[in-house]
């Protein structure tokens, strides 16, 4: 066996130039795959965390049907049973009840559409970063207080300022119009212009009072310690909340278009890599084919001596594997180093993009990640494809008859 390996190794280096070029091609493909996937997945993760902490949270508890039709009537009672169940789930970092409602905000002769977000400031801090984005003034305090914190754009559009009172006009739980005077105690700039243009945060008790929703909430937003626990926690909670007629949704189900746009980009990247790998595989096919046919006479002799056919095939397979392993190792190493560097120094994407991305709350940077799945998945895929490409040359060796080999020109 060892002699066979030694032979394989020497055969690989018989044609130094050719082998080096082939290894370089594999290294190139692997490195590119690792870097590209690293950037994609690393940036997604950061963006997801950023976005969910400014909107839905990692998970949400809702009444079934609320997601399709977010009306006040699809709200539910935020009772102690629910809270107990949520508290007992150890992977949950924090949870916070919320009420959402469309409203009109007016000051004298100016009014603007807004979205009321009734929250409990203390719990909300564990789930979202709203309170950290207060630009001026302060965040809301808990209790039945008719004070609001509005988005910066909304403030500008309405032409009001800290300390001013505004009228909030909305349709209550019973279907009747309600209004209330609220004092502006703070201004937020979340970085997402959608929020900054329409968000009006007020204490959940005040929202419940205004809308006539005693003890009821629209959703409960949940934050986890680790994004990777998402599916597990969802399944677990779902079981326990089913009897309460409540549904648990992931951020992807609450914001399907966001999730799908990530998926779309993801698939696009994979598609490109697939093309790259296929092209490199053809190169390997051709190279191995040449490396094999030019040795047919030698193979013929060796088969004539009585070498079992499969042994010969295995020899050539060893050669292919050696080239692949070297290329994979080099590619992963180089790719990993680049990823590590990007992780330490995220790539800034430019002012133009910064402005545009703020619409969605994305950050204008590209990160990377060193998750082992990237290295493993890419390596396995490329290995597999390269082996499939090598099937033809290996088959030719398998079918070679000693005399045909010896007489080959």
């Amino acid at each position, binding site marked *: 066996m060892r002699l066979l390996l030694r032979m394989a190794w020497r055969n690989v280096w018989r*044609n130094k*130039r*050719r082998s080096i*070029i*082939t290894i370089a*091609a594999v290294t*190139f*493909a692997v490195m*590119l795959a690792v870097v590209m996937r690293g950037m994609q997945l690393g940036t997604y993760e950061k963006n997801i965390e950023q976005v969910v902490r400014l909107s839905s949270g990692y998970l949400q508890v809702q009444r079934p049907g609320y997601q*399709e*039709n*977010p*009306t*006040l*009537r699809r709200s539910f009672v935020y009772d102690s049973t629910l809270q107990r169940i949520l508290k007992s789930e150890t992977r949950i970092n924090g949870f916070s009840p919320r009420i959402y409602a*469309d*409203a*009109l905000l*007016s000051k*004298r*002769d*100016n*009014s*603007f*559409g*807004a*979205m009321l977000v009734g929250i409990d400031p203390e719990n909300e801090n564990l789930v979202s970063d709203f309170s950290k984005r207060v630009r001026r003034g302060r965040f809301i305090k808990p209790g039945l207080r008719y004070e609001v914190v509005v988005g910066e754009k909304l403030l*500008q*559009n309405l032409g009001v300022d800290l300390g001013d009172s505004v009228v909030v006009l*909305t*349709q209550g739980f019973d*279907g009747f*119009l309600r209004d209330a005077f609220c004092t502006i105690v703070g201004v937020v700039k979340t970085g997402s212009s959608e929020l900054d243009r329409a968000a009006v945060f007020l204490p959940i008790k005040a929202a419940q009072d205004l809308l006539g929703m005693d003890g009821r909430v629209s959703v409960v937003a949940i934050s986890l310690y680790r994004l990777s626990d998402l599916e597990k926690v969802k399944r677990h909670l779902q079981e326990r909340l089913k009897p309460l007629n409540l549904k648990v949704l992931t951020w992807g189900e609450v914001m*399907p*278009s*966001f*999730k*799908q*746009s990530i*998926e*779309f980009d993801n698939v*696009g990247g994979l*598609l*490109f890599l697939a*093309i*790259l790998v*296929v*092209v*490199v595989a*053809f*190169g390997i*096919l*051709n*190279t191995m*084919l*040449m490396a094999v046919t*030019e040795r047919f006479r030698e193979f013929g002799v060796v088969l004539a001596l009585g070498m079992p056919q499969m042994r010969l095939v295995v020899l050539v397979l060893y050669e292919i594997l050696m080239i692949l392993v070297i290329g994979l190792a080099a590619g992963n190493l180089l790719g990993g180093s680049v990823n590590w560097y990007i992780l330490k120094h995220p790539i800034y994407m430019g002012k133009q*993009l910064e402005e*545009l991305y703020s*619409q969605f709350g994305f950050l204008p940077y590209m990160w990377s990640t060193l998750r082992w799945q990237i290295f493993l998945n890419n390596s396995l895929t490329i290995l597999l494809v390269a082996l499939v490409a090598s099937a033809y040359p290996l088959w030719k060796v398998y079918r070679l008859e000693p005399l045909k080999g010896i007489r080959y020109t």
Partner: protein
Amino acid sequence: MLWKIAWRNLWRNKRRSVIILVSVVVGMVAMMLTDALYTGMIRQVLTNQVSLEVGHIQIHRKGFHDNPSIKLLIERPDEVEAVIRQHPEVLHHARRVLTYGILSSSYNSSGVNIVSVEPEAERQITLISKSIVQGRYLKGEAHEVLIGEGLARKLEVSLGDKVVAMASRLDGSIGSDVFRIVGIYRTFDSEHDKVTMYIPLETAQHMLGLGDAVSEFVLMVKDVRQVDAVRDSLRNQLPPIYETLSYRDVLPLLVYQSEAMAQWMMIYYVIIGIALVFGIVNTMLMAVFERMQEIGVLKAIGMPNRKVLAMILLESTILGLLGTVIGIGVGMLIYWPLSHSGLNLSVFSESLASFGVGAVIYPVMDLRILLSAGVSIPIVALVGAIYPAIKAVRFEPVEAMRYI
């Protein structure tokens, strides 16, 4: 003569040349089609937004785009209209009032974009009139409203139901009116359908106390490539209290995405090109080394080095050109039916709908794509052959024998 030799040399090892060809064609076609798909998609999004809402050119009171307040009005619309009519490049134009309000049914209420239009003029501009799924388009009667499917679902209303719209009047008070749903529409932009309602212009002007004023003039031009020129001309002729914007000014993100994507594609072409170069270098090296003796003979009978170089380079380039021709052929063959039937990406339907494009994407084979693919391949083939060609010219016979 050199061409003939190069061509025949290529086919001495049929299998090898064919494999290179196939790899080139596969890489090329895959890139071309992917590029066409993305290009088509971005273009579709842009076109959709234009035909859904934005139009080619918009004219407002200055500052309206940043701050769409009801207070920023075009108070003398006839003045603006006169300037528009002086531009024969403008195919259609229409007036609109745009404001934000709340629409309520007996079950629910929702924030809405109230788009008030001149029904017949609007028909020429946007495709709303063609997107009706229930009922009918606006006729211009008082109290008629056209709402999106998503909005109807949220308010739990259907054709014929009554709804109340509330918005801020010009004088600051809250204006409201009752409307009857005469039609329900559905577009490819689900987000739009959830929040947009259409009423006749005069109804809005009355409800909000606007008199004759309007928020916006929306224009369609004859030739979309003239948009910027027309915009500039209008801008110059209108008094400075107005702002004139093209759809590119209104949708900078989409424009950016389209340009960014084209740039990324270039990078991708280069990467695939590099991958192909590896294969070509190895192949040409083999082709050169197994003919060492022959090349030695050629040099001995007096063939100058530069001709030897040219011969090798030519072989590879011919292969590249052949690959390009076949690649474009195959690519177009696959592209044509797709460009008519489109590609169904309904697995991404919700995301695509929120981008503003339907689940069916129509690829677009831009000239840029054909050029990128068509030019890059022969260049790749040429570059790949440089090292082997140099080797062919400079070889030492002893070296050659070690490679057997």
